[in-house]
């Protein structure tokens, strides 16, 4: 056993680190550090910079623009990107639908969609959840009926993140109402400009607009937009959700947030001392650092196992990473709220939307995003399969149920 990266890996880490340092636009980096709103433009700008470098879809098959990096290098890349701190390339395209199309799509779909995903020419969103089907996703009711050369889609999706920007949505739809619930589901790609689609915003408790309801009313979708086989969509969804969970661990992001926490704790004062010198508070930070280090080591073990090629068995590891990763992010967001004390109270949404500020902030200029982020990040233990559902998955695996 050896914790150190080998020379090649170390050189690689230095290379990506200096690339991020050089290429991440300063205004985006600043917004990330300050916890301000990252807009559509920021994500597009950054992903195109990455794509130009050939790194936007580093984990994809090489023939579609992937880098062919080892799992360790992929890990280093993500870790460094999150610590930069840079925004993620658009999750829904790069980490969700892209890999599904590569694994299960046909040639025409690959040619049509993959390059546009890599360059974020299309904004994708995820149409899985429905009002009646959250944890029990397989009970979904949105239907797609064949009519000549197309499907007719009817129903409703909800919690659809950033659908307000979307050009395309990937959906789970019911194509066979008569079979067992998992066996009648298909994976469809739907152009958001198709007549019959309505998007309605849902405001989250922190006041931001990031989720939506999406309604489908006799929406015509060409048969060629079916991914893989009809009624096999559940298998593809499980593949996608495994990737999603893995992505929620966000160890690099938590490292960066802890640095921010320490920075703010050394600015904020309790009496005549900086907060970081307060024994209790320092102990709380150290405790979350221990948790994070354990998670990082666990994640590295998973990565190392993948390097040795035994990554294909259904693995509850992604569920463990999701649960612990979400809990750690939530704890850090709580400490960041705590660090400003009563100045977490003023609600200043305009201060979070970087571009709209024309008044000086109330209290310290770093305070405004902290409480809203704490509330917003409660979502991390809910989405991507709630933490309760992850525990059910692990329990099934260990108890052989």
């Amino acid at each position, binding site marked *: 056993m050896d914790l150190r990266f080998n020379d090649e890996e170390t050189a690689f880490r230095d290379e990506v680190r200096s690339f991020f340092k050089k290429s991440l636009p300063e205004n985006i980096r600043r917004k990330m550090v300050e916890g301000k709103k990252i807009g559509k433009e920021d994500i597009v700008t950054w992903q195109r910079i990455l794509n130009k470098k050939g790194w936007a879809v580093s984990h994809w098959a090489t023939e579609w623009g992937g880098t062919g990096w080892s799992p360790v290098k992929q890990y280093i890349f993500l870790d460094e990107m999150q610590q930069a701190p840079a925004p993620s390339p658009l999750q829904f395209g790069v980490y969700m639908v892209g890999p599904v199309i590569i694994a299960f799509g046909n040639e025409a779909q690959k040619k049509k969609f993959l390059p546009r995903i890599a360059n974020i020419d299309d904004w994708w969103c995820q149409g899985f959840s429905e009002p009646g089907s959250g*944890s029990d996703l397989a*009970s979904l009711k949105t239907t797609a009926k064949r009519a000549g050369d197309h499907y007719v889609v009817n129903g409703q999706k909800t919690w659809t993140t950033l659908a307000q920007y979307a050009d395309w949505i990937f959906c789970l739809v019911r194509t066979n109402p008569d079979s067992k619930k998992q066996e009648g589901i298909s994976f469809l790609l739907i152009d958001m400009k198709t007549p019959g689609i309505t998007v309605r915003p*849902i405001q*989250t408790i922190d006041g931001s607009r990031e989720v939506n309801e999406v309604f489908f009313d006799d929406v015509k979708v060409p048969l060629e937009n079916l991914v893989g086989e009809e009624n096999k969509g559940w298998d593809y969804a499980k593949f996608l959700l495994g990737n999603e969970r893995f992505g929620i661990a966000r160890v690099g992001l938590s490292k960066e947030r802890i640095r921010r926490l320490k920075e703010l704790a050394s600015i904020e004062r309790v*009496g005549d001392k900086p907060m970081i010198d307060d024994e209790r508070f320092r102990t709380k930070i150290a405790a979350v650092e221990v948790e994070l280090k354990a998670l990082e080591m666990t994640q590295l073990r998973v990565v190392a196992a993948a390097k040795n090629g035994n990554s294909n068995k259904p693995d509850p590891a992604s569920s463990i990473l999701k649960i612990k990763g979400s809990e750690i992010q939530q704890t850090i967001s709580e400490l960041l709220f705590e660090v400003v*004390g009563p100045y977490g*109270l003023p*609600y200043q949404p305009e201060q979070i939307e970087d571009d709209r500020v024309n008044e000086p902030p*109330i209290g310290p200029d770093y305070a405004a995003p902290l409480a809203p982020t704490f509330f917003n990040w409660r*979502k991390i233990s809910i989405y991507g399969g709630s933490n309760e559902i992850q525990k059910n998955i692990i329990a099934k695996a260990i108890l052989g149920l």
Partner: protein
Amino acid sequence: MDFELSEEQRLLQESVGRLLSDRYGFEQRTAYMKEPGGFSRALWKQYADLGILALPFAEEDGGIGGGPVDIMIVMEAMGRALVLEPYLATVVLAGGVLRHAGSKVLRAGLIPKIADGSLVLALAHSERQSRYDLADVATSAKKDGAGYVLDGAKGIVLHGDSADKLIVSARVSGKQRERDGIGLFLVDAKAKGVSIRGYQTIDGLRAAEVTLAGVKIGAEDVIGDPGKASPVIERVVDEAMAALSAEAVGAMTVMHEVTTDYLKTRKQFGVPIGNFQVLQHAAVDMLMATEQARSMAMLAAMMAAEPNAVERHKSVAAAKVQIGRSGRFVGKTATQLHGGIGMTMEYKVGHYFKRAMAIDVSFGDADHHLATLAKMGGLLAA
């Protein structure tokens, strides 16, 4: 020992509860928030008619002569309804200062107006740097003839933007964090040199940053003994924390009720999600946290008027620890058990969660009071 409410207190509980359940639906609350000052003036008038604005004041001052338990009853009901009106600011905080330190003239001039709903007050005590230290006052009060001149800035003044008058703490002598040397002054919100920047807080209530630049105070508006205000401030803040504890219990009770209802009605996998044992246990944990908080809110109410200031403060600090921890736990769990819907502005649980968090960071969070309590030797003598 007696945990029963008196007949009068039960009537109070019923009448406040009835008014708020009629007038404080979710949509109604959203509408009040958009009114000037961020609350309902019409309801404020109704509180006056009910007598709750006069509640803690002595009968000879035009009050009703109620005690901390009566305030607990009102605040718990207000917590259940997530009330926006400046009850804490006007009646408990500023009203508390007047009760404990106001001259006869000041009391006679102000309390009847508080009671009839025509006067909104705020206590401008904490400052940008003071965090939770009640003695940390940098705003200065310099002697000026028979009166004083105030200079400085006050922060997170609850309802400071709708108050007609502010009670401002300022230092007449001593160093910035010294307990001695603080005075309290009555300041008209429109007085020359006062500027007020109001804003909404994360829980939908209002607060303000107040700047004081050469604000002249007449001798008649000096409250109590200038330089000796700390015991008054500490007492009033203890009363406010007892009141907030009751409010938090009201909020937690609703979060628990709403969540258990949801567990019974929301179906996944063909059954109500309340069938899943992990959620049952989480709901039980919420209940236990709420009941422990309720017990401590009662302790705080029964100890708020305790003459021994050390014992009083220990009990109230202990209550605030429990309230802070329970409130966080109940809020997080309520949100989690609702799934996506709990994350939305359209649903009520998140608003209660935000209020519970705001209560925790008001006048010192759970960690702060835990440290204080530890420093004071805990609750039991060794």
